[in-house]
């Protein structure tokens, strides 16, 4: 095994951060919903996909990528809110297996509805004109769009952080994560907060879906791969923890990037290997609290 060259090492290090941040964002939506509502939303991947398709439609109508981003977020928000009001809210008090089954089922229904309306062949979303080309970062080149995507994703994570840690609503959400019964007793309508949280989670998934659409193929099952990786991220970071999702995402991105320099075929395997080791050593994850479900 030969040592990788310095440019290769640096480019993979940077790439790990870029792909990791994206995983952080998708996982953050998943983990906030789980932390607050106690529901592991297996339709999160489908909401990611809805964001990409809604963005695709907005792009078709307007020709503007900015409009596509807004359209993607609103599309996922809309579907997410309907999902919460019509089905998921009746499952808050049900056992976890019921919640998992119902959200898994919703995910399949959404995916198949999209397949029915749009077909299985990938929809093209080109990189916007301001994202074309590559930039030299010291010793290596990196696509402009991926750099810009990093900025978008980091900005979205910052917004989420401010919302959760610097606002009154955020305080209620975080209190809800700790003890929703107590929050309810203090006279706060937890269920309205739940709807809000579900909407925020759905919107982050939709946002991630549309900003990644130009680098992926937009197909009805595009969310599945991400959903699996997000589970690894939140297990590493600690289930229900917002900082855990961010750090877990970056760690996951770096594991895949670094391993691939030596053995591309094992990069995904390594991700699961690290998760397994962490589960054995620290079952609650890096930022998780021991004993909490």
């Amino acid at each position, binding site marked *: 095994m030969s040592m*990788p*060259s310095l*440019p*290769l090492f640096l*480019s*993979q290090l940077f*790439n790990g951060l*870029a*792909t990791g941040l994206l995983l952080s964002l998708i996982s953050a939506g998943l983990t906030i919903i789980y932390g607050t509502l106690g529901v592991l939303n297996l339709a999160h991947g489908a909401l990611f996909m809805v964001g990409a398709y809604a963005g695709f439609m907005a792009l078709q109508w307007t020709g503007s990528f900015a409009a596509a981003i807004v359209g993607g977020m609103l599309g996922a928000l809309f579907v997410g809110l309907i999902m919460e009001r019509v089905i998921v809210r009746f499952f808050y008090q049900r056992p976890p297996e019921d919640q998992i089954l119902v959200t898994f089922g919703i995910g399949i229904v959404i995916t198949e509805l999209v397949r029915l309306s749009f*077909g*299985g*062949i*990938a929809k*093209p979303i*080109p*990189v916007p004109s301001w994202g074309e*080309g*590559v930039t030299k970062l010291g010793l*290596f*080149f*990196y*696509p402009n*769009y*991926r750099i810009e995507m990093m900025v978008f994703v980091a900005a979205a994570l910052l917004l989420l952080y401010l919302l959760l840690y610097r606002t009154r609503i955020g305080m209620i959400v975080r209190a809800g994560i700790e003890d929703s019964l107590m929050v309810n007793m203090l006279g706060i309508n937890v269920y309205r907060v739940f709807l809000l949280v579900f909407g925020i989670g759905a919107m982050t998934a939709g946002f991630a879906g549309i900003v990644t659409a*130009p*680098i*992926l*193929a937009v*197909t009805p*099952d*595009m969310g599945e*791969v*991400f959903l699996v990786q997000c589970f690894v991220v939140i297990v590493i970071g600690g289930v229900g923890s917002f900082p855990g999702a961010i750090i877990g995402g970056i760690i996951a991105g770096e594991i*895949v*990037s670094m391993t*691939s*320099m030596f053995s*591309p*075929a094992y*990069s*995904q395997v390594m991700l699961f290997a690290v998760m397994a080791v962490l589960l054995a050593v620290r079952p609650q994850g890096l930022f998780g609290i021991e004993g909490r479900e």
Partner: protein
Amino acid sequence: MNNDDDKKNQKSGMYRRDFLKLSAGVTGGMMLSGGLSQLAQAADYPAIGNYPAGIKGSSVFMGIAVPRTGPYSAQGEDEIKGYLLAIDHINKGTALARAYSPHSRKGLLGKKIEYGIADNQTKPNVAVQAISKFIGDNKAMMVTGSVSSAVAIAAGKLCDRERTLYLPTISGSNATTGKDCQRYSFRACHFAYTSAKALAPVIKNALGAGKKVAYLTPDYTYGHSVYNSMKQFTEAQGWSTATNQLAPLGTSDFSTYLLNIANSGADVLVNIAFGRDAVISTKQAKQFGLLDKMTLVMPYMAPFFADEVGADMLQGVYGTTEYWWTLAEHNHLAKAFVSDFEKRNGRKPGWSAHVAFLQTMLWARAVESAHTFHPPTVVAEYEKGNKITTDIGDVHWRAEDHQLVRPVYVIRGKKPAAMRNKADFYDIVDSVPGKDVMPPIELFGCKLGSAT
């Protein structure tokens, strides 16, 4: 159909095959619906597989298991459309059906072809489950469908054990008619070795001598096969191999592999990825600036690749294909297929639909020529290796490994300005006869088992 009979005999705890032997030999009354000719047919041959249980009614069942979800779903859906077209022509006994199978009248030996469709999810275990149901519950006389070679090989093994014909549709691995060849399985499409042998001289002519090649390879039997064959034929003409990046099937972000390729010093990128993986990896390669520095070659070009990446990215890209719709401009059978497909589906057929159509027609021909569904006799009919006139010219089956000896088409992406319509993505730059590209029989270690 006689599903009711089968349910009864399962309830009574009798083994199905014992029951079939009995029913075939003794109880003619149970076969009233089939009439005397069936009785005669059934009596001529010993029971084997689903014979004669699967042919007692007025129809025969064909099991279709293709990926309808996952990275190869677009190709799977296209295959279904190819099967349905062929079944319709055979059941109606049209002129097109008789062109492939001259003995055909309505249906197959007078029986209507019925079919079931299952989603194999591009997973061998799911495919095996679906096919077991087709064989056990529906008494399928033929099972077909694949986009992944891993699925085709698993399905081939199962059907061989069950003495049921299995016809893979897309399968690019050398192993399918090599070390994993099966007595009951026949492959009609081109594959790794024939593609690489047809393509290598064309790209050497076009790109020059002494090129360094980077490979992006799906990490399973298909990818390994194409990589090995491309490496063999390009190195034999003086090119070298810079790196081989193995990525799992269904990868969504290829950035790590592409960065390794960008730093490998290669000037040709051979992308072996297929289906959606091919689309994503090529788009990403473009974004990483790789396609400005390297020439892209797609040795096993996936159907719909052009539609999904767009003509801009495709111009000057070389690859091979099983079929391309412009063949209709030179061949009346191809014209009949393409225009009827287009009339029904509103678009041109991909090669996935074509090979599904071709396999079904060649099956009809074998059954009609053998005058029976008796599986070993049908297999023997295939193995005669007679010349067959098709829309890709004259072809024949090679008895030793069950590979169809057929042409391979080398294609090149057109400039967008040169396209005559929105589907006119490729020029066929070479049509290489099958006999010039077939591997020596012993090369991939095919050893066929017994037919009985």
